[in-house]
């Protein structure tokens, strides 16, 4: 009896780990934007929704090979990130934070409504079903395994970009002292635009992984946008390493909590944990 119990707990923990990888990737783009530009893209998950629709239409309607459709989706969402920055964020860069929040919130509802008009409210599915992988008594969804692997790869790539390249060093530098950047020969507006495209590309990558697991509909952003934002806050907004760790902690609460009680309870427990942390460490778990 106790053997069986343990193996399902282990399965829950491992599924939590897989979920954590995906949540970590989701939080990475939002943290990057906040850390560098000091603006929260409340509409981040809606960019992901756009990416999911891009994969769907290119693959299902226009019969592009799935991988090509996904690559195109990453490019499209990167472009959306750039457009979002140039036309919405730039004009309010020096405005009050609440105004910045409100404009990106406005974009959230704009994208939701636009998607409803353009694509309808019915759920869409790319029609790709991946088998589940069985290891002993445990079973894991292949889509989740792929998502975990790609998310980790994306994060390693991001880490290398930020630490090994001039662009990455400038991205980290600009978040520490924006005003001195021209003395380095760096045009801050250009770094902001590139960072926004990069944040968009990360959202695009996330959309490729989510489209393997979830149906697409105009409100899909609401089912993981808030979680992504809370994870970033939990790890300390703008702290990419903190967000990474927080994603795995949060995912364990959901997975293991869901194992002991019911799936919905996992979320309840995770959010109670979040609220408790906000009382205890209002600037996030890893704030200094």
């Amino acid at each position, binding site marked *: 009896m106790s053997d069986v119990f343990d193996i399902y707990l282990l399965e829950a923990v491992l599924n939590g780990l897989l979920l954590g990888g995906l949540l970590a990737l989701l939080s990475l783009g939002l943290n990057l934007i906040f850390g560098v530009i000091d603006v929260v893209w409340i509409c981040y998950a809606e960019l992901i929704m756009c990416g999911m629709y891009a994969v769907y239409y290119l693959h299902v309607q226009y019969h592009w090979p799935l991988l090509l459709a996904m690559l195109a989706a990453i490019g499209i969402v990167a472009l959306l990130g750039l457009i979002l920055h140039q036309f919405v964020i730039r004009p309010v860069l020096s405005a009050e934070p609440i105004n910045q929040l409100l404009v990106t919130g406005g974009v959230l509802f704009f994208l939701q409504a636009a998607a409803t008009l353009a694509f309808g409210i019915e759920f869409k599915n790319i029609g790709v079903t991946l088998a589940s992988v069985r290891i002993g008594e445990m079973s894991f969804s292949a889509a989740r395994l792929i998502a975990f692997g790609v998310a980790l790869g994306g994060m390693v790539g991001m880490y290398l970009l930020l630490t090994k390249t001039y662009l990455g060093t400038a991205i980290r530098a600009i978040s520490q002292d924006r005003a001195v950047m021209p003395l*380095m020969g*760096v045009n801050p507006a250009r770094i902001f635009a590139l960072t926004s495209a990069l944040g968009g590309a990360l959202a695009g990558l996330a959309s490729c992984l989510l489209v393997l697991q979830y149906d697409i509909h105009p409100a899909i952003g609401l089912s993981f946008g808030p979680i992504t934002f809370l994870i970033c806050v939990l790890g300390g907004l703008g702290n990419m390493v903190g967000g990474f760790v927080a994603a795995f902690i949060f995912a364990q609460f959901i997975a293991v909590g869901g194992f002991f009680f019911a799936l919905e309870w996992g979320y309840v427990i995770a959010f109670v944990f979040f609220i408790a942390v906000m009382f205890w460490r209002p600037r996030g778990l890893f704030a200094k």
Partner: protein
Amino acid sequence: MLRVANVSAGYSGFQALFGVSLEVNAGESVAVIGPNGAGKTTLLRLISKLIESTQGEVFLEDKSLKAVPPYEVVARGIAHVPENRRLFPRLTAEENLRMGAFTSRHAYRQRLDQVYALFPRLKERRNQVAGTLSGGEQQMCAIGRALMSGPKLLLLDEPSAGLAPVVVQSIFELVRRICSEGYTVLIVEQNIRQVLKVVSRAYLLDAGRIVQSGSAAELLAAPEIQKAYLGL
């Protein structure tokens, strides 16, 4: 090399510079001295285009900088070590130096060796984040970062500010070495006695106007300066 021609500038509602003119020749080290609030920092910020002049122009090698955006000034050959050093505190010393070479990556390795030869201490500390370096090391890192761009002209804003007296000595020793290595240097300082021992010429800036100029020795000996600034 550098010619500042009759420039005026200021911040909203406040004029800081009134028709300032000065010249720095190639290979020369020149100081702008003066009391706190004289407009020294504003003058350097104007030369590197961090602020616009309301009147007058700045020429580098007889080319006007008027239409040059601030982030292209480095590529034109002016490197600016700003007031309070302004290192990136959470980047390592070497990453700060890398930022200095942002516009001239091809020469990164070679210049890094040059900077480390000039400041062996920085090489020892290269993987330490800049925020944890000592004041003197931070100043070395800030100067090194500016030298990484291979500048024709080096602007130094109060390199001795905020440093312990014993460190101030060594910073001026460093500035002397940089001047003697053939760099063209324009330095602004409140620490008048020390800086006049290092440079060849100087201008006295007071309340936004150049009120006196001459060789360092002349200014050191000038009675007005001795009385007002050196407390003799």
